């Protein structure tokens, strides 16, 4: 087995996280720490899992329980770009399913798979809280709204060519909240 070293940045991050809770409540750091491990290392390797258990001071089975309960925790590697496509009501009402099928064709994979070049993993998820901007998806940490076949093509080609389309940050204003300011 290859040796996996825990990056120093993570160790520093752990101290920062413990600081958020009363001194004796170290278990609270479990989820944030796993989140950071995943962010830093791409996925949660068994060695990192063991390190988290040791650092937090809980049994390894507690850590396992958290990883299996929370759907965003990944105990296996994913592609460079993890696409999470919303399949809930508001997105489906605005044609999300067709756009998802188009994406499958475009990437040449089915939902749940990773492209051979390791670039994209495609997953469906439940409501991402962007229902007024439906259909929506996340690519890694970036949000993309009001998806169409054309927009998907641009986004995928952008990633392929190393020239990513800018994400929708911040979320554009839609509705009367976009109107002129009133006292």
């Amino acid at each position, binding site marked *: 087995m290859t040796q996996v070293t825990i990056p120093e940045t993570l160790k520093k991050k752990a101290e920062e996280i413990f600081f958020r809770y009363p001194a004796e409540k170290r278990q609270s*750091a479990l989820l944030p720490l796993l989140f950071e491990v995943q962010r830093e290392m791409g996925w949660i390797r068994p060695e990192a899992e063991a390190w988290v258990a040791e650092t937090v001071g809980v049994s390894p089975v507690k850590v396992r329980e958290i990883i299996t309960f*929370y759907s965003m925790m990944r105990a296996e590697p994913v592609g460079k770009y993890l696409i999470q496509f919303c399949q*809930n*009501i508001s997105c489906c009402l605005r044609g999300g399913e067709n756009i998802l099928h188009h994406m499958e064709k475009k990437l040449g994979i089915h939902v749940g798979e990773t492209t051979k070049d390791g670039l994209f993993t495609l997953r469906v998820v439940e409501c991402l809280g*962007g*229902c*007024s901007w439906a259909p929506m998806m996340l690519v890694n940490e970036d949000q993309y709204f009001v998806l169409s076949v054309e927009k998907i093509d641009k986004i995928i080609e952008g990633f392929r060519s190393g020239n990513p389309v800018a994400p929708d940050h911040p979320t554009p204003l839609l509705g*009367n909240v976009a109107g002129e300011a009133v006292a």
Partner: protein
Amino acid sequence: MIGNGSVRLLSKNFDVPNMATLDVAMKHGAYDMLKRAMKLKPEEVTELVKASGLRGHGGAGFSAGTKWGFVPKDKFPRYVCVNGDESEPGTCKDRLIIERDPHLMLEGALICAYAVQAERIYIYIRGEYYYPAKVMAEAIKQAQAKGFIGQKILGSDWSCTVHLQNGAGAYICGEETGLIESLEGKKGWPRLKPPFYPAAIGLWGAPTIVNNVETLAFVPRILDIGPEKFAAMGSPKNGGTGLFSLSGHVNKPGVYELPMGTLLTDLIHKHGGGIPNGKKLKAVIPGGSSSHILTADECENLPLDFESVAARGSMLGSAAVMVIDETVSIPQLMHWMVRFYAHESCGQCTPCREGTDWLLRLSKKFLEGTARKRDIDDMWQLADNIDGKTICALGQAVAWPTKSYLVKFRHEFEALCRN
């Protein structure tokens, strides 16, 4: 007022460039209301919020001031948790508050913490909100540097720290006791009730106020315009305005801030621009996917406030209004809806864990053309076996819409049956 009955009270600065930065926010009055609140006694602040008629915007619509008053007198420490889990399908308004005016929410949370004399605030933001969480983290840092957060705030004896916590993809962590369990570093399994509110026994067993992002963002505005004026803006027992997340088949989906009690048909037609492509309205889900569906007829003359929507047999919930036109098949909608709850059931109670799974299988049969008439009754029975027999309200959240789809659109299910 902008005309059309639209009122931007909470959202009035959403379109101010760089409102998330403290300098800009302070030019627009950020933290002035914290200063004003801290000149009052903590219990006076609670009374003021009570008088405003502010209701919880997270789903249950409970009076915010009343909840704050539940904190037991001599029990310390105390905590405030801001519920930014925003996972009820259809709901997408807290994301805008966090991204566009994070200091307003922070100020509201601090005023709440002052009112209940809490020493820590945890802001729980769903894991998928990477960008909103980044904005909030920066806002906290800036407010801390200016002394609005931390030791001896504004030179008083009261100290309070603020911490951000990310969720990790579990709808159930929006349920307030699930949220607390998650904050304690556990699976988000909701706690047995009673106690009915964590106000007495919450985070690490301490008194804890859990309020939604929007609820807290209203608090500075209440101090600003006064509770009477706030109360008068809404409808009876429903103070002020609300942010309505409008989605589905409307010409202008978006987030609309409107007085509580605004007519549903006004939201859809006047504000939302009506149904696209000349199609007819078939149904509306008025308060997130957990609410009973309303037929087009039931949408007429319906004021969007907690009591009125309940009187029509549904609920306002998180005020997420999903509009459904005549092209949509209700059995298809049922499948989308049930799939969500089957995925999100935390597995703690048997009726919910097993029931949602069976509902999912049966709902699929209608789409595959293998359903029989008895499947309709079986689905109703399954929903009834969940309803009221579970630890948390996710049970009802799937049972209620399921029953309403089956009862109100039975003919559509029958039409897909083989016998």
